[in-house]
């Protein structure tokens, strides 16, 4: 059995968090609040370091352009004042970055490259793959409800999606069990010393 204080704290936290699967209880609640507190504190420290390293230091070194993100950041706090609308500027900047980054990833990696990969057919499996992709994609037509015999295609597409989900579920079970086994090996091995 471990004599290390830290290992004991870690072990107790592990048990407390794990106890949630039994039911929500004061032991879990304490661990949860401790955990949230520590992680929020950690995030604040990280944010503080980011502002310090990425904005204040270059600013102090004479790169005045870094005053802009600092001002924008402070504008976020305008929500507590009468000029709450000022907070929209930093939000727009953030949303602009996110949208730009998302669009470029979506069009290339998620769209054209997938189209290119799908049309390269050589084997029977690849032909089947193309057929399945077309069927599944047809499930996402929104502007009209397909009638008659053709309505079978989006329905079949939905079935392909279900097979895909079933497979992904099955694959993930493996990884999740490995994680839990890892945790059990920590509790029984490193902490309590039952396992070698």
């Amino acid at each position: 059995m471990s004599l290390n204080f830290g290992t004991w704290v870690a072990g107790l936290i592990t048990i407390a968090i794990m106890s949630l699967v039994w039911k929500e209880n004061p032991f879990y609640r304490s661990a949860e609040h401790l955990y949230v507190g520590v992680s929020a504190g950690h995030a604040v420290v990280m944010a503080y370091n980011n502002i310090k390293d990425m904005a204040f230091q270059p600013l102090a070194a004479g790169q005045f352009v870094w005053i802009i993100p600092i001002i924008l950041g402070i504008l976020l706090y305008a929500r507590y004042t009468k000029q709450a609308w000022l907070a929209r500027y930093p939000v727009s900047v953030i949303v602009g970055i996110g949208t730009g980054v998302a669009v470029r990833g979506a069009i290339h990696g998620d769209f054209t490259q997938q189209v290119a990969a799908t049309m390269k057919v050589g084997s029977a499996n690849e032909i089947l793959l193309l057929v399945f992709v077309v069927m599944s994609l047809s499930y996402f037509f929104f502007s009209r409800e397909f009638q008659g015999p053709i309505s079978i295609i989006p329905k079949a597409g939905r079935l392909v999606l279900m097979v895909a989900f079933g497979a992904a579920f099955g694959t993930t079970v493996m990884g999740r069990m490995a994680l839990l086994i890892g945790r059990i090996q920590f509790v029984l091995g490193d902490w309590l010393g039952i396992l070698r």
Partner: protein
Amino acid sequence: MYVLLLAVLIGPLLKPIGIPIKISEGTQSAYDVIDSLEPGSKVVFGFDYSPGNAAEMEPQAIAILKHLLLKDVKVIGISFQAQGPMLAVKAFEAAGWTEKEYGTDYVNLGYRAGGQGAVAAFASDVPGTFNTDYQGKSVSSFPIMQGVKTAADVDMIITIAPGTPGPEDYVRQVYSTYKTPLVCGVPAVAITQVAPYVQAQQIKGILGGLPGAAEYELLMNQPGKAVAAMDAQSLAHLLIVALIILRNAANIFSKSSPKSQTTASAGSSAGRDV
């Protein structure tokens, strides 16, 4: 239900039951090709995994390292993942290499940034790319590095790599030019991606996930953590399958939809119905 799961996981860990593990072709050929190494030959070992995926990758590294130790082969450890060198130290120790002489029998050359580019640089100029070991000692001072110029000067390259740079980069940058035999360890989910290279004999042997490590441990007759974990894994999967069957058997016999669900979502197209 949770107790059942814990029981099937802990049970085999405490006392492995030894569900027969079928050795896959990839693991068998990896074992065979490593087993055919002459004593004294040199192997480059890529520690290309990180702490996040160590649970799945580390047992593979340790199993192969144990085998290499047995074969009296010299190992040059490298890494293209920032935390690889630290994991290399851990793996060398766990496989018992610390009793050997550092610098002569094995060496840990640390991490080089640059992804695929770094792999290419390593292949064409080993001592130029890895000019110091992980502690900053010059490589020219190590006897093991005598005569190693390019990737062609070692007898085999082994990489345990769950992501990039990974097997594909080693094939493209190293194997296609220098034809050094390549053995890889990948996560269970990545086997299908790498399969074309194995079929093309560009990769001589491959371990997939924790099962791969377990098979390797068995081939060496040294069942370890991975083999124990396999029993637990098998039982857990069986438990879930059994529960699903049980649940549906009840359904078929009672012919009525279970009332345990509090929601009435009739007509839902994507719901608990599925």
